[in-house]
């Protein structure tokens, strides 16, 4: 028994699940620093539509990405009920605007299925795979390309 548990633990990941519209997504819990309520952001000039602007996170300037818009889903004006997940992506700290955080789930790699062909290119850029939890479908997101490096990429 003792030599089975570590193997299982090594393969298992903790993920944080959240909701955008009716869909559920999740990201690795290790990349999420904190979760906070929506506060109005300062818009940036000539920023892509999914960049909601910047907010003050204890003295740091935090860019806010509307994750729904970034994934090409329908988007609505954020309210106080919306949530910002502060994530660490490739050396930067970025706020991800989502509708609500729902769950923390444990997952082993083999439970993940490849993204079906039906998804759009935009979705397939960010969705690494999908899996089922209690009959719900959850998409596993890769955050690496969420924030564009340069203006050229943003366009």
């Amino acid at each position: 028994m003792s030599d089975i548990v570590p193997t299982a633990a090594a393969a298992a990941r903790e993920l944080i699940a959240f909701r955008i519209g009716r869909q559920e997504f999740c990201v690795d819990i290790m990349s999420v620093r904190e979760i906070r309520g929506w506060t109005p952001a300062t818009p940036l000039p000539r920023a892509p539509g999914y960049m909601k602007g910047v907010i003050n996170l204890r003295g740091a300037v935090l860019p806010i990405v509307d994750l729904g818009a970034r994934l090409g889903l329908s988007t609505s004006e954020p309210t106080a009920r919306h949530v910002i997940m502060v994530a660490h992506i490739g050396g930067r700290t970025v706020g991800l605007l989502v509708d609500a955080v729902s769950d923390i789930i444990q997952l082993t790699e083999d439970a993940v299925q490849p993204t079906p062909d039906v998804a759009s290119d935009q979705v397939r850029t960010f969705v690494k795979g999908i899996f089922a939890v209690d009959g719900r479908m959850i998409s596993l997101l890769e955050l690496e390309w969420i924030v564009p490096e340069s203006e050229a990429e943003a366009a």
Partner: protein
Amino acid sequence: MTDAADPFEAIKVTFFQECDELLGDLETGLLAIEAGSADDETINAVFRAVHSVKGGAGAFGLEDLVRFAHVFETLLDELRAGRKPCDPPTVKALLRASDVLADHVSAARGQAAPVDEARSAALVAELEALTHGGAAPAAIADVLALPEADEFGFRPVAFDFSTLAAPEPAAASGWRVTFRPHARMYAKANETALLLRELSRLGPVEVALDASALPDLAELVAEEAYLTWTLDLAAVVDEASVREAFDFVEADCDLTVEALSDAPAATDAPDSAPDLDIAALLARATAEAPVIESAPPVVEVAPVVPVAAPTAAATPAPAAQAAVTIRVDLDRVDRLINVVGELVIQQAMLAQRVIESGLARSSGISVGLEDLELLTREIQDSVMAIRAQPVKSVFQRMPRLVREVGEMTGKRVRLLTEGEATEVDKTVVERLAEPITHMIRNAIDHGLEMPEDRLAAGKSGEGTVRLAALHRSGRIVIEISDDGRGINRERVRGIAVSRGLIVEDAVLTDDEIDNLIFLPGFSTADAISDISGRGVGMDVVRKSIQALGGRISIASVPGKGSTFTLSLPLTLAVLDGMVVSAADQTLVAPLTAIVESLTPRPGDVHYVGGHDAVILFREQFTPLIDVGMVMGFRDAALTPSDGVAVIVETESGARAALLFDAIQGQRQVVIKSLETNYRQVEGVAAATILGDGRVALILDVDAIVANARRRSARPELKLAS
């Protein structure tokens, strides 16, 4: 912080930091000696600097550095003991040696290319020659040539002789050293055998061990120290050299050093030192010679030696007064500054909430909040002061530069520095080095004339470059002036015309001509010289100064010289800004760019080609830029008379009027980077956090003006976007 992973590496980093300081001390000391303002303590300090570099380098096995430092140190030791005069050629050699030593340090650090071996070897030979060879005869000649030396013998009063003799080495025939280590000394991993070996390098040592304090084995405490050594050193050296062997342990032992005066110095020296190296022996013998020759009345003088010895021993004492400082990782200071910045914002937010809540100003909360505000300000100022550093660290590098450029151009240059203690934020200090270096090179290369030309012009053959720093109205001002030929306006004008920078019949004032040298692509050097050429000119200097939020100006008098004046903010962390609003957004415009603000009257605004607005400002049509539109905050242009026009001047001197909805006020803002977590945004220089806790963007005035110009040049693009 990969350094921290390896403790040895971390110590090495500290060693190199210390090296920087020591090299600075070394240079300062040598320059003082060169200027003739040196006392014994200066020479001691110079010696200690080289000695410490050598010591540290030895610990890290930096062979080349140790070898060079050793030769350097040996010569300095001769100077320190007074066996060699500090004559100009020696000092020049020492200065060059300090440059090479600095090269060795950078090479050991892996920062620079390996040291120029030939140069290093040549200097080693020169230093050795100065130490042994040509030095000794010169010393004799010097001493003998002194009229006082002749007078010496005829002086009837021995007391006078003692004061005159004081600068001579206080040599005794030998020394009895009683050395009783404390347990502490061993605890610091010092080894008696090594100390004795060090001492034996001065001459033959007779060692007697007194183990009488050693208890029985049963009572012996392993960590205790029980032994006492009595060491008889038969060598003609001064007391300081004897004590130096125990330099690092002096505080952790009982040490007495007594002169062995039983044998007369004259006979003892040759007897006791048969196995010394001959050159050293010669040096010692010659150094001693004058004393002996003028010795006839010496019988009463002999006791002088012990009198002189304590003074020699006392000199190291003032050196111990180290400045009370600590080394702190810059990251920690930056973190503190960030947190304090946040504290200031939180405090402002709290104050705003309290006002909004309608509490009376006299209420306990309001009063407490005011005190808090004062404290917060004080903390912020104190934290900023931690980062403040004297410009000395940059100024210190310049004497070497001046020497090198002077040598390369064949010009004789004297560098005067003033206001080295002027403090400015560390980030500013670091970025000052390059422009100052460049301007000093320029001053020597282009400003100063060749010695013969200077003499012909009735000036001293040696040119002067003055580097000064001072605080003026919340900014630091750096002045670099030379007493050279000044700007040749005819030539500058001719070059500007030939490069197409100005039209041939342009009417320019002297001041405007002087400022032409800041234009990109302007270089007055006939050929690209190794010194100030390389294709970078004053335009690069101006750009780097402007990047720091600074300004540069020039004043020149033909035949008398030129003065460059840099004016820079004291810190890059805060900025004086005008808080404005455009289409419901709060923005900050840097105050340095703003000329003035005005409310446009309908008659002042005109349209060129239908949509490009210009405003008549001081008889000039100035482009009027609707910032809300340019930034994409709104689609329809603001009616100019409903807003406020702020006249700005860009770095290139072009003027434009920025149209905002309203001006909220003027305040100092803390600069926050957008790039840390996002990326650069066109038209935005940085961000800041206002009192209400929201982020406001700081405008990049130059980019906005340039962008507006591009758009109006290609209106179809404007429609497309």
